[in-house]
């Protein structure tokens, strides 16, 4: 078996030959053109995340508020599910047609 070429490995190597230069180029482009803007956003996020409260009570209050909001919105905007009407008994010809098609 050692002499045979594994087709999967061959495909993988071919894929990597094309993909790695592309990935490097793409990352370089991102580093030069996109990441400087992301740094500013990261600084804002850093400031924001430092201001987040460290206790659990605030988060539980947010949870209760969201659950209440969801419940009120459901009560206000959703309509009650309509019950399906009873289907009429099928005509004998339809039944026969259904059987004949099978």
């Amino acid at each position, binding site marked *: 078996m050692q002499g045979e070429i594994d087709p999967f490995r061959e495909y993988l190597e071919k894929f990597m030959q094309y993909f790695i230069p592309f990935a490097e180029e793409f990352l370089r482009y991102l580093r030069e053109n996109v990441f400087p803007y992301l740094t500013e956003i990261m600084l804002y*996020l850093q400031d924001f995340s430092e201001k987040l409260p460290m206790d659990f009570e605030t*988060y539980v209050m*947010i*949870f209760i508020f969201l*659950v209440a909001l*969801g419940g009120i919105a*459901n009560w206000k905007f*959703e309509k009650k599910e309509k019950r399906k009407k009873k289907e009429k008994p099928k005509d004998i010809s339809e039944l026969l047609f259904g059987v004949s098609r099978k």
Partner: protein
Amino acid sequence: MTDKKLLRKGVIAAISSLIFYVVLPYVIYIKYLAQYPEFGVEKYIDWIIRMGIVISGINFFKSASSSKSVRQALGDLLLSIVYLIFFFKLFTLEVTVNIPETNVIVSISMVGYIYIYLLAALVGIFANVVKVVEVWASAGRNRSL
């Protein structure tokens, strides 16, 4: 009028995310990690539990609304923003492992991943904003929240 089916769906979503984000990390921490205080993972667990509480609330809000409604799209948007803050917090936290026998202190930080994640999260938030506008516009005359 309430839609009990949707409410039930919301309660199930909230409870499942509470189990996943709050109960499971806490149990893992108490059972396996609390006996190794030198790893210092309490900060991670605390933040996972804190943000998990908020995520489960948003999941209830999202799942208790009918599909293709503005509320559901808003829930998606809120979720993506909270996930961004959550992962940002996790990535920027530093964990220091102190091994007293060898006098070695190892500091673990994952700040390197933040740029790629931030890019993906910002694209996701933008997509969710577009979705909110799209749902709002497609409602037409029968516009409702």
